[in-house]
């Protein structure tokens, strides 16, 4: 049977994608503000190559780039062979579409609705920086020549699950923990032996409007990264508005990470954490693996912050 072999939590922000494009095209490399992030996430890429997932379930939030306020779903699942890149107002970046796997899309829809998650099914989902801002340096593109960002595709298929972080009321932290558990159960009934990685992306501390624009609470980010692997229930019990008060309104996206943690077993361990604050968004990464999922590793962890 298929199995969840690990999970990643990772931040997203338009600038981490644009700065990556700029830095790879520039002979002088990345800007000093952003260099630590691309250095820190190199280890994530190495670990992902060793985890060798066959499929990704990505829990993310759309930023009014696909959905709009005439119909705003609390939870939506992308089911299709391809997911194109959304135009966020500046035109899309030169990146290949995401590849879906309709067997997985249909299976997870059945399983999640069967577990009373009444998802909106999106058959033509356009994906924004919620995924594309970290994907190009966390997964190596295949098929194209080295350094050619437009060639080829991605090494693994994706089922995206979009969570409302736009319109109040937001789903509760407990609901996202339950979503993670339902994803885990749904993966386990998929025929075959696919290795599935669950990724949650959002946060960390940031606020991008109002007079608090640019607030940066690195102690909150480190607290969250330290406690998520072993103290999920305590973090879920903290009101979402408390994360928003301390870390900025967009820190509410940290609740998406609960779905990732809850999709893993109690025995899963953190193998890498990293955290930095380049500009206006707290940037963090956490890689967790189930026992035996990473060949040649014990349960030791490494921290890169």
């Amino acid at each position, binding site marked *: 049977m298929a199995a969840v072999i690990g999970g990643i939590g990772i931040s997203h922000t338009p600038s981490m994608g644009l700065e990556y494009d700029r830095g790879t095209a520039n002979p002088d490399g990345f800007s000093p503000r952003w260099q630590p992030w691309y250095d820190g996430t190199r280890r994530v890429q190495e670990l992902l190559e060793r985890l060798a997932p066959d499929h990704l379930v990505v829990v993310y939030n759309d930023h009014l780039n696909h959905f*709009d*306020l005439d119909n705003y779903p609390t939870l939506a699942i992308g089911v299709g062979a391809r997911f194109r890149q959304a135009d966020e107002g500046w035109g899309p970046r030169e990146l290949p579409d995401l590849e879906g796997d309709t067997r997985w899309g249909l299976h997870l829809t059945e399983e999640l609705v069967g577990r009373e998650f009444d998802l909106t099914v999106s058959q033509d989902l356009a994906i924004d920086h919620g995924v594309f801002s970290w994907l190009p340096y966390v997964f190596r593109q295949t098929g194209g020549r080295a350094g050619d960002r437009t060639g080829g595709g991605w090494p693994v298929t994706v089922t995206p699950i979009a969570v409302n972080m736009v319109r109040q009321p937001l789903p509760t932290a407990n609901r996202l923990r339950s979503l993670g558990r339902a994803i885990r159960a749904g993966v386990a009934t998929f025929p075959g032996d696919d290795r599935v990685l669950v990724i949650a992306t959002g946060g960390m501390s940031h606020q991008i409007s*109002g007079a608090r624009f640019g607030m*940066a609470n*690195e102690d*909150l980010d480190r607290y969250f990264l330290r406690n998520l692997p072993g*103290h999920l229930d305590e973090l879920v019990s903290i009101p979402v508005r408390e994360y928003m008060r301390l870390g900025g309104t967009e820190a509410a996206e940290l609740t998406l990470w609960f779905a990732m943690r809850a999709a893993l077993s109690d025995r899963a361990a953190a193998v890498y954490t990293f955290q930095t*604050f380049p500009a*206006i968004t707290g940037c963090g990464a956490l890689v967790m693996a189930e026992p035996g999922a990473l060949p040649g590793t014990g349960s030791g962890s490494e921290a890169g912050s």
Partner: protein
Amino acid sequence: MHTINSVQAGQAAELTAPSFDLDEPGTIEFTAQRALAGRALNRFALSLRSPACRAEFLADEAAYLRRFGLSDEETRLVGERDWTGLLRAGGHLQAVLKLAATVGEDLWSIGAHNAGCDRDTLIAATPRRVSGVPAPAPAPPPDGA
């Protein structure tokens, strides 16, 4: 829950430290009421996700806005690029950002207007560091990892 607010040196003199509350003007929350009030504004702004619509808007702003049924006040806010006023009137930040992109501005323009300073001041001031965690903190894991 108690918190510590320690703002580090280097913060621009014009900007006070971000406070630990969700009140205006620090935070302009996109409430359900604002979502209702901003229906026309957000429809207009989100139409700018299409390159053809961006070109049409730039060619004749007034004519383009009339199609979306914006009020006189909303039309004025768009014309004056009053980013803070647009958010207060029910524009969602992510929608207003499409307008900024279309007219050659970006998130920093919106942020500076919201914070009441110029772009360079805001850029120099970020990250605007604060410190505080929820209390009481969970106990560390037993293995000390």
